[in-house]
């Protein structure tokens, strides 16, 4: 059931079915994620961002290519590298930035931080700092949809590192056994923390291993929005129709280290610079739809979104920096609904 799509895919043929509005919306979210992460990379060096930050830059096409198919009533579970998923699912930028800076204005009141951003009203069940943690939880959200017959779906985002976790295998088998409307997305960015996926994923192909559980599984170019979008469209339609789970392995690039401050001794000195120069999901998208491509969308419209994204992120950072820290009276609240 596994298919390897050509890399790079012929984006032009895949994007012809999307409207101009859809193309613009997708780019707008992707460039917003990029601007958010590039700015956090800088903000982190000031020492004002507490704790660990893991950046999503380079993987924008995956979160957006999947989440463009989802409504607020659909659920996603995310990873420690979750900012991209949050933005793609529609989380508020100010709430996210406030949370990352540990402020009272954060979407979780400063109690969660970068690794636990959640917005249940948007169907965002939380970034998750336990590798693979989202898979069983998304499977449970899919059980809710199935039991209540809503036609909704759930998506588990995990990485190549998470693909080796036993609880992910358990979730995949459970989803097949109970025929749950869930999509397992494995973002294979080549590294689980500091260890290469070529070393750690014993089967080599995450998609082939997923197919062994008895579900359709495809491997796509995760830098190509259109390849991800098309694969997700099939998988999510299948889930909504009650036909059960699917897997997408999206091969991606990680522009930064595992965490901010990671010296990346495990990567060749020129690896990241070369990757950035050669493969950029945003440039790939622009080339496909803009002046040099299908001429579906004007370069000026896309440029305007780049400017807007930078301004939005700047406003969010300024607001977060100006916001108060949580009051100490919140230390012991929110442990239980009732006691």
């Amino acid at each position, binding site marked *: 059931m596994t298919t390897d799509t050509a890399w790079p895919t012929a984006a032009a043929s895949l994007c012809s079915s999307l409207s101009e509005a859809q193309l613009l919306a997708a780019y707008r979210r992707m460039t917003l994620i990029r601007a958010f992460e590039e700015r956090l990379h800088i903000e982190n060096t000031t020492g004002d961002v507490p704790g660990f930050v893991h950046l999503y830059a380079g993987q924008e096409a995956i979160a957006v290519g999947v989440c463009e198919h989802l409504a607020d009533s659909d659920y996603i579970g995310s990873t420690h590298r979750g900012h991209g998923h949050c933005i793609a699912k529609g989380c508020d930028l100010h709430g996210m930035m406030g949370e990352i800076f540990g402020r009272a204005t954060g979407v979780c009141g400063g109690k969660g931080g970068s690794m636990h951003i959640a917005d249940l009203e948007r169907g965002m*069940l939380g970034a998750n700092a336990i590798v693979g943690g989202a898979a*069983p*939880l998304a*499977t449970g959200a899919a*059980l*809710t949809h199935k039991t209540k017959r809503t036609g909704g779906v759930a998506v588990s985002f995990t990485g190549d590192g998470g693909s080796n976790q036993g609880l992910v295998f358990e979730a995949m088998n459970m989803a097949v*056994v109970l025929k749950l409307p869930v999509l397992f997305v494995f973002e294979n960015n080549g590294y689980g923390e500091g260890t290469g996926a070529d070393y750690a994923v014993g089967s080599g192909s995450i998609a082939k291993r997923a197919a062994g559980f008895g579900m359709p599984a495809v491997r796509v170019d995760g830098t190509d929005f259109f390849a991800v979008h098309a694969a997700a469209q099939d998988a999510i339609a299948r889930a909504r129709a009650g036909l059960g789970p699917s897997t997408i392995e999206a091969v991606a690039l990680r522009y930064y280290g595992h965490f901010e401050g990671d010296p990346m001794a495990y990567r060749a000195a020129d690896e990241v610079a070369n990757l950035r120069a050669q493969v950029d999901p945003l440039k790939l998208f622009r080339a496909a739809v803009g002046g040099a491509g299908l001429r579906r969308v004007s370069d000026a419209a896309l440029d305007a979104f780049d400017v807007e994204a930078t301004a939005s992120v700047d406003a969010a950072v300024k607001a977060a920096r100006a916001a108060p820290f949580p009051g100490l009276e919140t230390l012991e609240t929110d442990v239980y609904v009732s006691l």
Partner: protein
Amino acid sequence: MPKRSYRAAINDAIRLEMERDPNVVLIGEDVRGGSGGSAGDVEAYGGVMGVTKGLWTKFGSDRVIDTPITESAIVGMAAGAAMTGLRPIAEIMFLDFFGVCYDMLYNQAAKFRYMFGGKARTPLVVRGMMGAGLSAAAQHSQAPYNVFTAVAGLKVVVPSNPYDAKGLLITAIRDDDPVVFCEHKLLYGLSGEVPDGAYTIPFGEANYTREGEHVTVIALSAMVPRANAVADRLRAEGISVEVVDPRTTSPLDEEGILESVAHTGRVVIVDESAARVGIAHDISAMIADQGFRDLRAPIKLVVPPHTPVPFSPPLEKAWMPSEARIEAAIRTVLKDQ
């Protein structure tokens, strides 16, 4: 009042709540039993101890969900379903098996509400059997409620009789926080008065199963009937024993315990969970911290030795806190004037 076993009382609570609320689902391995077998659609087990017998016949496969042997996915799926609108009851057959799925309780369900700034609700019940006494050996005999109690965000219930089991389980199912419901396997056959309809027992309210003047025995789960038996026996000698059953270890009824301590001034705590860092140690520290001046003798703990649970019956019997050890502890604390 009709008599029911502890097993039937638990079944009754689940049935009533499933009738009341369509969002309540039961998830676990062999909670029905018989799914996919060559005998066709049957209800083979109703749980290995028969606790959930008859529920599949009544509610069907959409709500009584047999799963593979896959504890991480059972608890994880139930946690994900709980935060999105169902009220799952997940069965971990033997609570010893929490070892293979603890992340989904410890790092996930227990922490959602706090991590997410108070926006999540996780109305999840994880239930299973625990405890020694059936020669089930080291991996099927533990009573790990002390471990769950240490985790902020979890509520922990340890019912000691059929009436409490039903009322506390109904409370657990209606509660919006994750609850670990610990059923002692020695108690399943215990019979007692249990009303027919639904009723709730609030968490964090200790039950004085015996009232007395001379010594307070705090006991949990299957230790409660043992403490009661000792209290009844010693009454003939003129020794008046108060038995306090906290019923839930999280929340813990500190006030209810301290009140009895103030009344008697002497304390024995009987706890099967652990020789170190158990509930006995927790309650003992709380009394030392808040009720020290009421004590007329050192607190005495009756706990198992610091070993895994042994298999062979004489060894297991010696491992478990016994009536003889409870009685000896009572006599010891009464010696100090």
